[in-house]
């Protein structure tokens, strides 16, 4: 057990001035260090300089394609079910005879609702969706632009 002790201040500490000087010594140390070596500062000069994103950084989603150019997605809706924010809408395409075709006719993500938890990626058994696009600059003036459709999601 560690007890936080409250030691009474000594006379020199009670006089403010010496402790203030000690504190000023700490701050001037930082000042001099940064004055002599300003490039050692941790600041990132965004947007000129950008952070190196981690490999598994959860950025904007994208729908991956097979080598043939089709979407890997089979419209199984596991991602839509796993989504805590319920922002994914998937509809399966139908063939002309009305039978299900294993590809989505509609795959919308409402990014303004998305919480970027990565559950959709984790739920997908076909690795058809991933979040490693590294896009995080999503500011937009219009809410409508936050509806990402199938085409938009597979375009980058």
């Amino acid at each position: 057990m560690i007890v936080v002790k409250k030691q009474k201040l000594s006379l020199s500490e009670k006089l403010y001035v010496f402790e203030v000087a000690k504190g000023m010594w700490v701050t001037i140390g930082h000042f001099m260090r940064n004055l002599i070596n300003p490039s050692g500062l941790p600041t990132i000069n965004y947007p000129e300089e950008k952070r190196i994103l981690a490999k598994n950084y959860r950025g904007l989603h994208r729908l991956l394609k097979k080598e043939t150019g089709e979407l890997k997605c089979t419209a199984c809706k596991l991602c839509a079910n796993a989504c805590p924010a319920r922002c994914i809408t998937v509809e399966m395409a139908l063939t002309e005879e009305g039978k299900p075709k294993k590809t989505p006719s509609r795959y919308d993500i409402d990014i303004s609702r998305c919480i970027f938890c990565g559950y959709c990626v984790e739920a997908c058994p076909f690795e058809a969706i991933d979040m490693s696009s590294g896009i995080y600059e999503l500011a937009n003036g219009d809410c409508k632009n936050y509806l990402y459709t199938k085409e938009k999601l597979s375009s980058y």
Partner: protein
Amino acid sequence: MTENNTQAVSLQRIVSQLAGNDHIEFEENCGSLFAVVDSKNIISLLTLLRDTPSTHFDMLVDIVGIDSLSLTPITANRFQIVYVLTSTDLGHRICIKVHLPSDTPEIPSVSSVFAVANWLEREVFDQFGIVFQGHPNLKRLLNFQGFAGHPLRKDFPINGRQAIPESEDLLDEMKIKLGKLGKPIESIKIGECGNTLEKETSNDSDPFIVNLGPAHPIVHGILRLLLAVEGETIIAAVPELGYLHRGAEKNCEAGNYHQVIPYTDRMNYASPMMNNIGYCKAVEKMLGIIISEHDMILRVLFCELGRIMDHLLCLGPHLVDLGALTPFWFLFQIREKIYDIMEKYSGARLTYSCVRIGSFPFPLYEGFTDEVESVLKDLAGAIDDVRRLVERNRIFYDRCCNVGAITPHDAIRNGFTGPCLRATGLEYDLRKNKPYYLYETFDFSVVVGTNGDTYDRFFVRVYEMIESVKIIRQAITRIKAMPPDSSVAEGAKKSKGFKKIAPPAGAIYDSTEAANGELGFFIISDGSPKPYRIKVRSPSLCNYSAIESMVEGTMIADLVSIIGSLNVIGGEIDR
């Protein structure tokens, strides 16, 4: 397990003896002991449990309201209330369950027995419409006063949100308080936008009514206090909560067990990982899953990193509130570095959602331990700098010593946990008192203060960070020593995709020592894959519950310091 059982059995015996003639039914579920009692003599029972030395349930941890409308089997008693009691020195815990009828859900208030019950009962009243007879101030706590309906009732639609027509003036409470002080003011009237105005003819000696918050630099998150001040001295304070109320508990009921994890991130956003882990631990306990030793140690590591992050978030802004901006930056640099590590591991900087029930979703990345090591080294330097700046500085010392002091007795009655309780000198830490995740095998000390003032709360946190560093170092050594095949990678593979999780029907209360105190999850399962009810025992709410008595009589500048040192996190209070 057997040890737990014998303890539970002996506790059952003692409690039924205490209750005397009243018949008490006991249920046990996953290590939580439930005693079903009658609602009439709840006050006497709780007083008895509190004051008898053999039980000594001195802390009311939480009051959980339950609406069993769709819980099978259907009974005439629609509502239940569960009082979670714990003993700070004997270490046992009991849940007292009370059934309330559907038509007139009423129960005597226990706010005279436990001070913290004041707010907890208000919350239950707010969410369920259960009336607490004899409550001093039964108003809604989280929702606004004009809210129609009670949101956590099962027949309340999840999308039943309502717009707030106007803010509340809180003058009803303030007038009562001032009346008790012998300073009734009739001259106060309400102006536009709920602002209080004084008449031009107001008396010179009338106190000055001023709103602090909801948007004020010191209220981290959004809180509001209505203050009556004389000069700079606060004579009465009325807090208002709920500005960040998002209905997280209602939302949790709509998804499955996995989908709760992102919500827990957003409760205490200062240390999201600890919330993730606390929740997963509770669900695992319900399911009877025992995670591997590697995962346990990794969870300890993440918990302690989270604790450091949380304490950094408390200490830095606290110093900013006191007017010293520079230490804030020294501390936050370290926090950023921990963010970087967590981002590399989980893919997100703040809302990790990175623990799964039974495992971790990702394996540790290459070089994780080295990066943690280097951060720990930087942390030591930053703490050192900050301590040299403030520790013996008389300005800081005078601002903090004997400000907002609280006795251990009051702290327990107000449900204080975590650093705020330990600052009063009471050695109560769930990591030591109810060890989980192999915490008993780690070498660390509990930090306590002497008289529970701001200075103690500040330095308890500082020393706790140093202890956390010790734990992290041990955890790293142990993880490194483990064979790589028992690593998380396997668990990660297993958890690919979400398994359907449906715990057996029953209720459980499980808690962890989060950075702010005891973070508890009360989970009720009806056997379906959706949780029936999740109640979060938020440490911030209880720590904040004594704010009125702490600030009254101090100055405005002290209020700033007290709120800063309590580390109230709006997201956690309001949920």
